[in-house]
């Protein structure tokens, strides 16, 4: 294979191939999982579990393509784009990706801030929280990718016990609701599958991380495994929500998973949602860090400027945007917008795949 584009990264900055599991998984699970039940059930109702599986399969396909492209090129997003489109068009696309990753971070941060406003502190001043959170993210990102991956690991470890709490709503729910019966048309299920795909957004960051992976070839199975794990988590969450809520009720519940936590009851603690939201800060943090890291990495690769400066610039943008977007409708709009854009970017991967494939064919033909 042609690995001329390989970007040298010092050995001590690399992450092991196992950690790709964390990278992919923690980018996929973010704030979305706290309230995705409503959106996927909007079209397909209780049949949305099929949509999640379809989406999961689609993600595996896309992951396969991403790995194929990366292996064929050997570099990262920037070198792929440069070799496919040349400097100028490729550069524009790169910047597009950079902004897209930035947008992902912004959406996650703003939505998480909103959750805190809605559920915990209605009077909280957004700028202060955003500032504190961004400073924290800055502290992480300046430690390098390895440190961010460390946070991913901890977020996965901390997220696991939260899954166990799904047991409480099952006790209180109607298991009969998930009777395996397909009630919706294929069309509806596919629409819902499209909605579900958006929950998995973020794995395309692999395009930027790739040079940082030790034994990149063996990381492939970990990426797929991560995606599978995410699918399972989404599936489990959806099923539990379907058991707990009636189909029509689900449309009235904005944050399904958080509402589920309300029922968790210990002799020493009630109303687990406060704890859950606080712990979710750990799940959201790697999301924001990875997004910002990738977003600021692209310009560094293109223009050879210090990543630190771009990072600070991007953080200022995110900070200002977070303050400016200050009501429920705007936040909803932001989410819808990000999802739309995200979908296009996902659809772009097959395009890139085909182009790379053609290029490779042509080159082989030329050589022989």
């Amino acid at each position, binding site marked *: 294979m042609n690995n001329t584009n390989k970007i040298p990264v010092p050995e001590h900055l690399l992450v092991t191939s196992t950690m790709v599991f964390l990278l992919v998984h923690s980018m996929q699970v973010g704030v979305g999982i706290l309230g995705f039940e409503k959106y996927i059930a909007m079209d397909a109702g209780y049949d949305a579990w099929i949509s999640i599986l379809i989406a999961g399969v689609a993600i595996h396909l896309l992951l396969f393509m991403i790995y194929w492209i990366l292996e064929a090129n050997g570099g990262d997003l920037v070198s792929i784009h440069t070799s496919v489109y040349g400097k100028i068009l490729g550069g524009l696309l790169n910047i597009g990706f950079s902004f897209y990753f930035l947008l992902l971070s912004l959406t996650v941060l703003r939505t998480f801030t909103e959750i805190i406003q809605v559920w915990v502190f209605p009077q909280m001043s957004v700028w202060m929280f955003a500032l504190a959170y961004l400073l924290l993210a800055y*502290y992480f990102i300046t430690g390098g990718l390895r440190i961010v991956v460390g946070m991913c690991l901890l977020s996965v470890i901390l997220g696991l016990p939260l899954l166990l709490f799904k047991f409480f709503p099952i006790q209180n729910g109607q298991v009969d609701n998930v009777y395996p019966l397909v009630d919706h048309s294929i069309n509806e299920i596919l629409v819902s599958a499209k909605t579900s795909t958006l929950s998995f957004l973020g794995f395309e960051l692999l395009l930027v991380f790739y040079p940082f992976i030790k034994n990149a070839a063996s990381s492939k199975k970990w990426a797929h495994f991560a995606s599978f794990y995410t699918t399972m988590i989404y599936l489990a969450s959806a099923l539990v929500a379907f058991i707990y809520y009636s189909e029509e009720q689900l449309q009235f519940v904005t944050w399904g998973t958080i509402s589920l936590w309300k029922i968790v009851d210990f002799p020493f603690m009630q*109303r687990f949602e406060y704890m859950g939201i606080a712990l979710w800060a750990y799940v959201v943090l790697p999301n924001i860090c990875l997004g910002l890291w990738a977003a600021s990495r692209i310009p560094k690769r293109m223009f050879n400027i210090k990543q630190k400066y771009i990072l600070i610039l991007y953080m200022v943008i995110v900070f200002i945007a977070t303050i400016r977007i200050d009501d429920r409708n705007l936040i909803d709009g932001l989410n819808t917008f990000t999802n739309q854009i995200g979908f296009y970017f996902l659809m772009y991967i097959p395009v890139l795949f085909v182009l790379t494939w053609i290029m490779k064919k042509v080159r082989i033909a030329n050589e022989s």
Partner: protein
Amino acid sequence: MWKWKKGSGDQQPNHNETLKDLMNKLSQSKDFMSYELEEPTNCVVSYFETMIEPKTINRLILPTLKRNALHSLEAMKNNIPVEGLAVTDDVNIIRHRFMQGHIIIQMKKSDKKVLTIPAVVAENRDVSIPEVEFSVVGPKEAFVESLDTNINLVRKRLTLPQLIVKEVNIGKLTKTRVAILYVEGVANEENVNTVEQRLEDIEYDQINDSSYITQMIADNSNSPFPQLLDTERPDRVTGSLVEGKIAILVDGSPHGLTCPTTIVEFFSASDDYFLPWHLASAFRLIRLFAVIFSVLSTPLYIAILTYHHEMIPQDLLATIVSSRADIPFPPILEVIILELTIELLREAGARLPMKVGQTIGIVGGIVIGTAAVEAGLTSNVLLIIVALAALASFTTPVYQIGNTIRLVRFPFMIGAQLWGLVGVSLVMAFFIAHLLKLRSIGRPFFAPIYPLRFRDLKDAFIRLPFNKQSQRPIQTRPIDSERFNQKRASEKRDIDE
């Protein structure tokens, strides 16, 4: 970071100094002795009265010189029944030896060549029971202030030709002897070099204790977490050496340092290896829980009472609210007042002589606590929590990390007051970031957790039985990572065989 950078300051004193200048300088001190002997040997003997063993000079050196006519330093060297004699004319060496308690003999006052005779008086504390890291089972000896004794204690336990002891002198003025110990063929050379390099690069005038070294060669000197493990137990040092770690012993300090270390190592006690593995693991988990409790209990109290009342179960609510009914302060102030009281008692207890200290601790705790509750300044629920948290912070086997835990609580309290549980979460995230970034002699400090090393987890939060620990921890990157042959140890036998 400035600590190990080679400074511009000249550590070597001026080279033009002659022996005569030195003698003149030294003769200003009252304990400097110098006299000429005449018959039968004609020579000049000088020493510090306070530094030498009188027996050596009275019974060994002077009789020899008086009985025989010795006309050269070489002759003396062959005749005086003391080992470690040397003839030299290097002023630096002479000064160094003289200051360490050697007797020097010149043939004539103006001679440049001298004979140095070691006669150091050994004023040492006896090896005694460990005080900070006491354990009921296991060895009961602790390091003392003498470096030689300490090295002896380690060597006695590790009779290996591969145990290397390197020595450097650190401190512009104190010239403290610092020994680096490691097992060759196990310890990673890179680690050894790092330690040596950092020790040599220390620029400071005095080294009075090993804790100076800890702070000076730490990777991040602004961190509240100690990055070298501090121990007074030779068995613990030996254990670390065998795992491929490096030990640093400092003359004049009864504490040895081992590195690289990890955060979990600070929560493991030597007892853990003396007890059966399940018990040891259970106690380790209890200690871990104690630490978490100690750090988080009061911040959670603030967060929940200030912002998240809904989380308190109905039955607990009555207890908490009625105990807080007449308290004039908000939870944050109440907690800070009580925490400061406890810290005050702790500091006072540590500064006072032992007997008085204990009394102050108990009396102060009970009297002040009860009085504060009765006066309605603090709630008794909080008193219980704070006292338990203080108690829990004492369960750490390594004293230094206990201090860290004492301090780390306060940022958490501020976080709790700012944003409730979310604030606690954010402060925690900050500390996680800090720990992730932290390194001990270039090796990750947060190790078996991140980077995740399953092999090292066998002796982290729990301690698996010895026959499962066939490998040395990856953390130290040992050259030879196998402790024993796993195959032989795990041979399985059938019934009645």
